[in-house]
């Protein structure tokens, strides 16, 4: 095996790892968007979850508790957002922005004492037998369990949305809340549940960033991943499997910069760092230019408030 081949295996592994962060967050956002709610607070929830997860992992020494803390933090913030937009009929864009701005400030504020902290040695996970396979082992089978969890989550969510009754109800709430309400479904509670689930998954993604992906705490360390995850749901036309593929693609674009630098490409690092952001814009342009295609796939009531009995 040549060193070149080996570096490609590492690039694939790193892309999957980076993509997992985006995938988990975007799957969460997909749930609440399928119920008709856009939460622009993803970035803020991920930041607060990142510091909550990191701090918990530092104090307890347990990564799993760190992930849970991140999920709770994300879920709580999403619940506050949900109360505002679902019960108080606040503009969803404005409330989501408020959540992101608050999360940015709040995480920086509570995280100030953790910038020097370090986590213990990071665990290594090798799948028995598979990890030892030449090339494929290094590319696919030495990942953190959360990477596989993201794949399982994608399958589970696809099954839930298209093959289960609660999933059908969730989609109905996002397509036509009036009809779902007329059928006797508690539209607002379902929407809140979807928003909290979305927040919890964004929280898991945020905690994964600070506990495993880059195990430390730096102010603003999510660096736009929440916003990219939001773009991903549109890019994936609200389909779980496409979210996962899109996330890996973005993971690849993110990792490409390090690969290119490793190959000695003579471009300033700042331009390589722009790649994920520029790729997001390019992808948005490509997918959105066909407006009727987007409209056909978008949950029909996305972003519109529902106020029963008004």
């Amino acid at each position, binding site marked *: 095996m040549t060193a070149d081949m080996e570096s490609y295996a590492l690039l694939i592994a790193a892309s999957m790892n980076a993509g997992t962060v985006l995938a988990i967050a975007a799957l969460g956002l997909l749930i609440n968007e399928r119920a008709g709610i856009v939460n622009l607070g993803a970035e803020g929830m991920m930041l607060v979850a990142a510091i909550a997860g990191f701090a918990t992992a530092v104090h307890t020494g347990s990564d799993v508790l760190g992930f849970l803390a991140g999920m709770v933090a994300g879920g709580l913030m999403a619940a506050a957002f949900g109360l505002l937009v679902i019960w*108080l009929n606040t503009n969803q864009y404005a409330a989501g922005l408020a959540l992101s*701005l*608050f999360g940015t400030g709040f995480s920086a*504020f509570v995280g100030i004492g953790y910038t020097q902290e370090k986590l213990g040695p990071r665990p290594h996970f090798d799948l028995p037998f598979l990890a030892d396979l030449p090339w494929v082992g290094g590319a696919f089978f030495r990942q953190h369990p959360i990477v596989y969890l993201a794949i399982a989550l994608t399958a589970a969510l696809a099954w839930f949305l298209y093959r289960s009754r609660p999933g059908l109800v969730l989609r109905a709430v996002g397509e036509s809340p009036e009809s779902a309400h007329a059928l006797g479904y508690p539209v607002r509670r379902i929407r809140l549940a979807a928003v909290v689930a979305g927040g919890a998954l964004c929280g898991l993604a945020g905690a994964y960033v600070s506990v495993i992906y880059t195990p430390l705490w730096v102010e603003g360390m999510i660096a736009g991943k929440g916003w*990219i995850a939001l773009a991903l749901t549109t890019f994936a036309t609200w389909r779980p499997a496409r979210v996962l593929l899109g996330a890996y693609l973005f993971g690849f674009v993110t990792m490409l910069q390090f690969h290119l630098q490793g190959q000695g490409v003579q471009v300033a690092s*700042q331009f390589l760092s722009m790649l994920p952001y520029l790729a997001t*814009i390019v992808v*948005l342009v490509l997918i959105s*230019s066909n407006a009727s295609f987007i409209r056909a796939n978008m949950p029909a009531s996305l972003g519109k408030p529902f*106020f029963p009995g008004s």
Partner: protein
Amino acid sequence: MFKLEARPQPSRLMSLASPLLALLMTVLLGIVLFVLLGKDPARGLQMFFWEPIKSAYALSELALKATPLVLIALGLAVCFRSNVWNIGAEGQFVVGALAGGWVAMQADAQSVRGLIVPLILLAGVAGGMAWAAVTALLRDRFNANEILVSLMLVYVADLLLGWLVYGPWKDPNGYNFPQSITFLAVTKIPRLFDGWRVNIGVLIALGAVGAFWVLLFRTYAGFALQVGGLAPAAARYAGFSSRRALWMALLLSGGMAGLAGALEAAGPLGQLTPYVPAGYGFAAIIVAFVGRLHPLGIIFSGVLMSMFYIGGELAQSRLGLPKSITGVFQGLLLFTLLACDTLILYRLRWKK
């Protein structure tokens, strides 16, 4: 349980009372936060609400910080009123600072202040406009979501600034620090008083308040913009072009953010560093909403947000609290404002 009941028409009173109510709630939450942190809440509030206004010098600093916030928020108010969600003002601010900074770096011993300063400001406006035009173009031509595009461009602008100050624009005599040369004195935005940092930017901001008031409430174009935001169908019927509104809103707000960036670069900063982006572009979103998207309201909310900034810095130096407490209060203020705004359209009714 309480129930919300739609009002027959929006309450004007609540529209004005809501920001005050939100401020009150933010202050109460702030007191809770100070107590939790074991700090004297009275001292904390003093940092935010008394220190920034206690002397003429303090007021001048307050005005200096409020200037970029007001300038950016004016542009954003036009955007939000026309339902264009430009949240990338931070990026437009940075590009404005880059463009203005570039002009300032071209100054030499022969430069005339009366010429170079207007050039710096014009370059800032042009830079901010150009950056916002990317968003407008992609939205107009390809229907790409302006929220995400304008936000992604913030990161791109920050990286562009980073490349310039670490690379081509780095001061060769700057001990390898990532910073441009210090701009010549001739490029400095003229100050209002000797020894104080406050400059003519304040006058420009006040003039802009008047200009935006006229634009929004006394011109046909401003009227068309707002109809498009409130009732797109009615605007289409009336023949108001939504594309025109999109371009106008984004170019105006981009230009204002760029102007603020140039004023900052050639004003208090005096050079380009990685610390040009100070979050003004994001804070201005809050300023615009708290100011009711009204030019006069924006003066008040801009000053309030400026107090938050100065209070945060004082809380750091005198109480040992992290400066980022400013961001916490900013976020809380917007969040509580949005909650209180419900009372404009609805009233609370007690129901069994």
